């Protein structure tokens, strides 16, 4: 059974086209939660993402893809993943706090967050959604089949016409063309329609083929009408499907909910114990350099593309190319001069500077920029 994702968020349409930043950042209540899921720091709300980008020049990485085709990743959507350095910086500045997402959900759903009857209602709602989904899928499949059959009939009629004009009347036709596969997207229908198409090819008195195969249509009147005449068969069956209220159990599709806040209350239950505060995110030794560059107004992105730790943009990455490939080090950390040479060469080749830096003393960061001299 295909798994169908339904979103229950109903977003209000944007009130105006004003994206220039005059939208008050109080639309996002500070401090914002950052969700820690399996060692990754995630944000799911677009308003938060925009506010962080605009006000705190933190960009993160969008990692959301289509569920059925994750390899289509030229453009990704929400959720946004933050680097540990970004998360720590936001927490240190008091802009955000980290939530252990798993813990919060367990507590929300299991430990008195939801009452027994609330949970039951939610589960029933999910089942109803699943039933709706199943019905919609079936209706779509039936419509596709109807279209396919109509095409099939037209083709057949043209063939008969040709035959009758050329060779004389002969109602017996050759094996009909298969219904083009693009009209049948649902694989469960193929055996079905294969047998139905043979039905339309042969004359009406060969009805016994219609019996004994699994019928997509469970109501008796459907199978009868299918046997009687192909022209009126499918429209009736689709119509009858729409009016059917009970859906068999095997057609209820399982739903994975994408939001937590219809089932969970918007404002947490006051009686629930508070979640334990998490420690600051652990960051690599390059964090002082990150903080230093961020304080100078640079937008920092992961530097995996160029074999460095960060790429520093002088402004929004959508408007500027990055200026520096950055590596943060301990003040006394040994590094091979070859690495410096490699970084400097690479940087010059792609019109960027190679920046290395660290904390000379507590709270005193210092950076050096390397580029090839040209001689």
């Amino acid at each position, binding site marked *: 059974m295909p798994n169908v994702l339904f979103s229950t968020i109903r977003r209000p349409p944007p009130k105006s086209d004003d994206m220039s930043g005059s939208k008050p950042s109080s639309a996002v209540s500070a401090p914002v939660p950052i969700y820690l899921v399996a060692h990754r720091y995630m944000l799911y709300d677009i308003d938060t993402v925009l506010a962080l980008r605009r006000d705190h020049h933190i960009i993160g990485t969008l990692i959301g893809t289509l569920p059925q085709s994750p390899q289509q990743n030229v453009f990704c959507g929400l959720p946004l993943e933050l680097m540990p350095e970004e998360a720590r910086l936001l927490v240190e500045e008091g802009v955000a706090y980290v939530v252990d997402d798993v813990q919060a959900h367990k507590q929300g759903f299991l430990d008195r967050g939801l009452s027994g009857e609330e949970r039951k209602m939610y589960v029933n709602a999910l089942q109803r959604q699943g039933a709706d989904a199943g019905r919609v899928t079936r209706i779509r499949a039936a419509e596709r089949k109807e279209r396919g059959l109509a095409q099939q009939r037209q083709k057949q009629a043209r063939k008969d016409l040709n035959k009758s004009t050329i060779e004389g009347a002969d109602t017996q036709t050759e094996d009909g063309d298969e219904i083009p596969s693009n009209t049948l997207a649902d694989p469960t229908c193929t055996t079905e329609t294969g047998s139905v198409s043979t039905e339309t090819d042969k004359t009406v008195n060969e009805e016994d083929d219609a019996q004994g195969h699994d019928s997509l249509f469970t109501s008796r009147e459907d199978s009868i009408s299918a046997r009687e005449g192909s022209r009126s068969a499918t429209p009736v069956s689709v119509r009858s499907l729409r009016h059917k209220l009970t859906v068999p159990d095997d057609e209820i599709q399982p739903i994975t909910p994408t939001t937590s806040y219809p089932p969970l209350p918007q404002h947490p239950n006051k009686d629930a114990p508070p979640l334990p505060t998490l420690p600051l995110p652990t960051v690599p030794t390059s964090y002082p350099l990150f903080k230093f560059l961020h304080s100078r107004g640079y937008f920092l992105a992961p530097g995996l593309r160029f074999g460095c730790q960060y790429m520093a943009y002088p402004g929004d990455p959508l408007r500027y190319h990055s200026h520096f490939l950055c590596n943060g080090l301990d*003040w006394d950390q040994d590094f091979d001069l070859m690495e410096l040479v490699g970084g400097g060469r690479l940087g010059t080749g792609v019109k960027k500077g190679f920046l290395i830096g660290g904390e000379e003393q507590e709270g005193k960061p210092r950076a050096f920029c390397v580029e090839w001299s040209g001689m």
Partner: protein
Amino acid sequence: MSTPRNSSSSTPEDPTLSGLHQFIQDNRPPRDATHEAHAHKLALQVAHNLRFQHGWTEIRLHYHPSRQQATAHSLPRPVISGLPPQRLYMHPDEQIEVLQRQREQGKAGWPEVAPEREWVVPSQLQESWTLRRFGDVFDALSAVPAEKEGGRLHFANAIQLDGDEGLEMMGNRSGSGAGSPFNSTPEREGTVTSNGNGHAPNKWRTGQPKRVLLATLDDDSTVVYYIVHDGIVKPRQN
């Protein structure tokens, strides 16, 4: 870097030594220098490369921190200063300014820009550095190498001139002591010329972070130079 042959006398020319080896023999470190012999020889090899491969002039070797703008007590390794034949580095904003001025004056292309004196820090490619070492080097140097600091080097077949060195390749023996070998009049009053008197220091030199050229000597005797800035300086438009 292979060591030169031990010879008791350094001044007479030994035809069995290469030019570089003879040069190293000819230039002993001053007695008050505390650096090791290999650091000295490395500096000499880089100085030789600057002079003969790249045509630098007024090459001087420094063993002590600069008298001005230096906060460190000692220079961790000998450092070279010299004058490149053309301007080596122009800050991207300075490039824009120069071009704008050209446009205002109705000219096309680049004007003549006088070269600026640069520091060169020698290093071997296999060395491992730390950020602290870079910091120490920068702390011991001034923003612009001073004219008369450091020791002159003895290049064979060169006339010993005070401060200037006539470039044999140009056949120019006229190099008078105080005059600039590069007779191009600076287009802007702020350019640092080789003699440095009478001209205000270039604001792009003093307003920007310090810079040095890091010379990396490889085992095949090639030397490649990288510009290192003591701060965040945006890359040039190349």
